[in-house]
């Protein structure tokens, strides 16, 4: 073997051990599909907020257990909680509220109570105050939920406590359980905290096992009871298992095809092993280099990577096809081919190539490689150009897919040039029947290519396909990127309906220079949103300022209370309050403290709301206000119009907008790439031949668009990116075909094998359940088919 072969093997070994090391550390695969998306918000704090909100709602699994018979629902919920707890998969399972003390919250607020704004105004003069007090005490509401007369004479703190968004209004406590009344029965809530991130495969696995087991038990013991679940972890499990299944399926089928093609066509284990070696080299380089540039590999990259298998093998196919074709021409023994066979095709079009002449009748691996070097390099460069367009998309996920594919192809390419010829010194097993068929095909292609009717037929075809393509519908929704299983979505929708929780990732980001300004700005926002709650557009609001009023507000409330204290004292005296009780009240008022966010964060009951407070950021202090209800993004944005420091963050809408923008951009760059490739081809082959070389991929692109419209799939960024690949590979085919069109037919064989494999492996993506991949698959399937069927045009020598 030549020196460069050894060097490449050494490089591969190094890259391989690096990749293996990183993979084994367990943190090389990213299962969070959203992580593939680029930052969509102009404000960096908004991106952090999206993440912190996702984390807060993502670190637990939520279950609702319900059925027509309330007692059965409750028993089932307890069974579920017990099973989940027993599984040890969750550090904390909250099924019952046994240890909940409703006194905790009133006790926390007591020292700050004179600064907490009440819900209702109270009268000012002693007469009216006395009447107010008497009315309160005569009410049939027997026990006070606040502090009672001595500490909160006018029930002002009670009013403050009542507005706290501590519980969903629809939830009730029954038998120490949180229950919800649904139309079809009683539902019981049970939540379980995860032992780690929802995107940690270990956490996912233990959660999946525990929930599956508990579900089975529940189905046996309470067959009539329904179990609803939601939580990021279930979506992550769903996405991961599906991606893994698809990856295994696609790579499995690709591999089977690769095995069959090698064994059937070349009848040699050697070719199979060499083909696999070039794929393996491609994958190793791809994984290792991607891991150098990216922290983690995305799942989609691996799924796409499985398809790169089919592409990496194209180069070796072309080489092997040459091996087969040239060995058959009467090389050194063993010679088994009849020399009278009609293999020798007349040179319909012969390019003046010294290689053709010098090839003679002997197989010489390095010379053969040199002979096809030009089409290989040209094909490789144009494919790289297609991927390069993906690299330009401001989409971390696509960049990674592009890098992975480019490096993978490069690895396979280098392997072909450095290693493969070393092992192909012997001529191939003769396959006269295949060669005969292929050459027949070649002859047909050549005569077809020269037909007078080509231009007209082509124009008509383009017209029909173009017309069909126009019927396609553009759809840039985020759903075109990720679509969870229908069952999970249905369960989540049901849970939303029941609980009134509606977290579609829409929230307000409120920013100010400090805590005081941020809280005050929140209050201004909450004041605007409040009417939406009374009108039923919103169910509730989550905001830190509901728990901690702004210092300005606390101070002005405290001042008002101090101003009115004498009037209140005189009313209380008339009511018969003991002097010492009045004295205590006066002292409490005097030493009232201002409540700060820090105080609140220290209290255990703030745990479910702590993520709302982002605190100090690079640009001030930030907090989130989360509206819950049916109101949608545009309405919510309109309501907050003009408020300083308040922006609505709607990640899903931002992603959709970005997908649309990138689709438009990608469409324009596809046009640009077409011209660029045509220019390159014109430079290499002349403008006329250049046109016939790019015509087949153009037909492929039109067929891909028409096919997408025909199957009713949406056109989006991913379809356009697929078109880039159709262009890249299509030019591969035509360049291979034209470059190897000598008497051998090797080009036809190589291209046929490559197109067949690409069609199978990428076409399979059309059946993927991940919309992004599905769109890719549909476009590539139709595109490769169209290109292959018209690739004979590249042989045309007439205008």
């Amino acid at each position, binding site marked *: 073997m030549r020196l460069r072969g050894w060097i490449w093997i050494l490089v591969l070994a190094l890259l391989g051990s690096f990749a293996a090391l990183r993979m084994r550390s367990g943190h090389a695969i990213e299962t969070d599909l959203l992580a593939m998306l680029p930052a969509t918000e102009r404000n960096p704090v908004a991106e952090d907020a999206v993440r912190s909100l996702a984390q807060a709602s993502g670190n637990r699994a939520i279950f609702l257990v319900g059925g027509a018979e309330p007692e059965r629902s409750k028993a089932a919920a307890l069974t579920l909680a017990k099973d989940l707890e027993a599984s040890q998969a969750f550090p904390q399972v909250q099924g019952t509220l046994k240890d909940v003390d409703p006194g905790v919250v009133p006790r926390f607020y007591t020292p700050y109570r004179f600064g907490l704004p009440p819900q209702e105004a109270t009268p000012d003069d002693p007469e009216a105050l006395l*009447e107010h007090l008497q009315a309160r005490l005569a009410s049939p509401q027997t026990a006070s939920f606040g502090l009672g007369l001595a500490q909160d004479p006018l029930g002002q703190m009670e009013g403050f406590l009542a507005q706290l968004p501590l519980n969903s209004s629809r939830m009730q406590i029954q038998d120490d359980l949180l229950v919800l009344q649904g139309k079809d029965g009683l539902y019981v809530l049970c939540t379980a905290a995860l032992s780690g991130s929802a995107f940690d495969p270990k956490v996912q696995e233990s959660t999946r096992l525990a929930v599956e087991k508990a579900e089975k038990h529940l189905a046996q013991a309470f067959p009539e009871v329904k179990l609803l679940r939601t939580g990021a972890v279930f979506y992550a499990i769903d996405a991961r298992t599906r991606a893994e299944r698809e990856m295994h399926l696609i790579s499995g089928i690709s591999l089977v095809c690769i095995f069959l093609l090698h064994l059937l066509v070349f009848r040699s284990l050697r070719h199979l092993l060499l083909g696999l070696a070039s794929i393996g080299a491609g994958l190793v380089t791809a994984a290792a280099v991607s891991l150098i540039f990216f922290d983690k590999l995305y799942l989609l990259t691996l799924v796409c990577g499985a398809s790169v298998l089919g592409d990496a093998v194209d180069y070796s196919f072309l080489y092997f096809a040459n091996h087969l074709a040239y060995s058959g021409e009467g090389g050194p023994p063993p010679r088994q081919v009849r020399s009278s066979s009609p293999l020798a095709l007349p040179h319909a079009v012969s390019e003046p190539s010294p290689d053709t002449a010098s090839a003679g009748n002997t197989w010489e691996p390095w010379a053969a490689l040199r002979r096809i070097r030009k089409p290989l390099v040209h094909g490789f460069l144009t494919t790289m150009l297609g991927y390069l367009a993906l690299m330009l998309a401001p989409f971390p996920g696509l960049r990674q897919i592009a890098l992975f594919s480019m490096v993978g192809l490069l690895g396979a390419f280098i392997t072909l040039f450095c290693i493969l010829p070393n092992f192909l010194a012997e001529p191939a097993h003769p396959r006269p029947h295949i060669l005969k068929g292929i050459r027949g095909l070649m002859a047909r292609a050549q005569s077809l290519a020269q037909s007078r009717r080509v231009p007209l037929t082509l124009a008509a075809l383009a017209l029909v396909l173009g017309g069909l393509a126009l019927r396609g519908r553009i759809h840039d929704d985020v759903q075109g990127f990720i679509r969870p299983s229908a069952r999970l979505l249905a369960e989540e929708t049901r849970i939303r309906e029941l609980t009134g929780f509606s977290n579609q990732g829409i929230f307000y980001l409120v920013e100010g220079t400090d805590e005081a300004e941020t809280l005050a700005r929140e209050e201004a926002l909450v004041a605007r949103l409040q009417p939406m709650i009374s009108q039923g557009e919103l169910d509730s609001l989550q905001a830190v300022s509901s728990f901690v009023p702004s210092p300005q507000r606390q101070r002005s409330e405290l001042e008002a209370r101090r101003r009115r204290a004498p009037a209140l004292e005189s009313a209380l005296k008339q009511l018969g309050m003991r002097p010492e009780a009045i004295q205590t009240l006066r002292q409490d008022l005097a030493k009232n403290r201002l409540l700060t966010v820090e105080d609140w964060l220290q209290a255990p009951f703030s745990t479910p709301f702590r993520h709302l407070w982002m605190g100090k950021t690079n640009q001030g202090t930030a907090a989130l206000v989360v509206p819950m209800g049916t109101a949608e993004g545009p309405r919510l944005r309109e309501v907050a119009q003009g408020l300083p420091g308040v922006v609505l963050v709607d990640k899903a809408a931002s992603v959709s907008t970005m997908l649309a923008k990138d689709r438009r951009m990608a469409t324009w760059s596809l046009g640009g790439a077409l011209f660029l490739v045509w220019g390159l081809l014109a430079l290499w082959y002349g403008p006329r031949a250049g046109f016939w070389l790019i015509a087949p991929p153009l037909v492929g692109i039109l067929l891909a668009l028409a096919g997408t419209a025909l199957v009713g799939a949406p056109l989006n960024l991913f379809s356009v990116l697929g078109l880039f690949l159709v262009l890249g590979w299509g030019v591969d085919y035509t360049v291979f075909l034209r470059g190897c069109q000598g008497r051998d037919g090797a080009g036809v064989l190589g291209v046929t094998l490559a197109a067949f494999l690409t069609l199978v492996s990428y076409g399979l993506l059309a059946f993927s359940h991940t919309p992004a991949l599905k769109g890719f698959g549909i476009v590539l399937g139709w595109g490769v088919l169209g290109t292959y069927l018209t690739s004979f045009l590249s042989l045309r020598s007439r205008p």
Partner: protein
Amino acid sequence: MRRLALVVLAAPLAAQTADALTAHLRNTPLLHADFTQTRHLKALTRPLVARGTVVVDRQRGIIWQVLRPLNLTYVVTPQGVLEVGPDGRRKTQTTKDAPMVAQMGRIMQALAEGRWSVLEDYFTLKAQGTPGRWEIRLSPKPVAASFIKSVVVKGGRVLERFQIEEPGGDHSEVVFGAPRLDQPLSEAEARLLNLK
């Protein structure tokens, strides 16, 4: 010893017993009565007394009308709560706006009608006596313990007396008198029960 065993056995049956003892309350479609509410608050030197009338309509709700020391009306219905102040000012809160109020309304209705099982989410019940003279003692479960210490309800043919103790030492008592089972609903009362 035997008595203890009986108590243990009886405990799970308490709600049923209470419901059975007072089954006749639920058969009363409409009741008018007078009431006297006395509150003993530790912070006050003297008890606060309020007097008025109460109307319990099994289907539509309760009207709690205070006549002394001032005029006040509370109407509790499944749809919401209406409050009419001494100055005639009205305040309506629907069940949807104020879930807390709705909860209180449910409890009041349940108490008035002797549907004790509704209260079991908050209290443990102990019933004794006969349908002609019964007493039911409610001890709070942990969820309610910081608001209430105990409730005792006594009655015979009709509800007669509530005694409520709060954790801070405050306690109050409501005594019902002059029950009228045949008095029809006046037009004004019907309007109030429609929250109008």
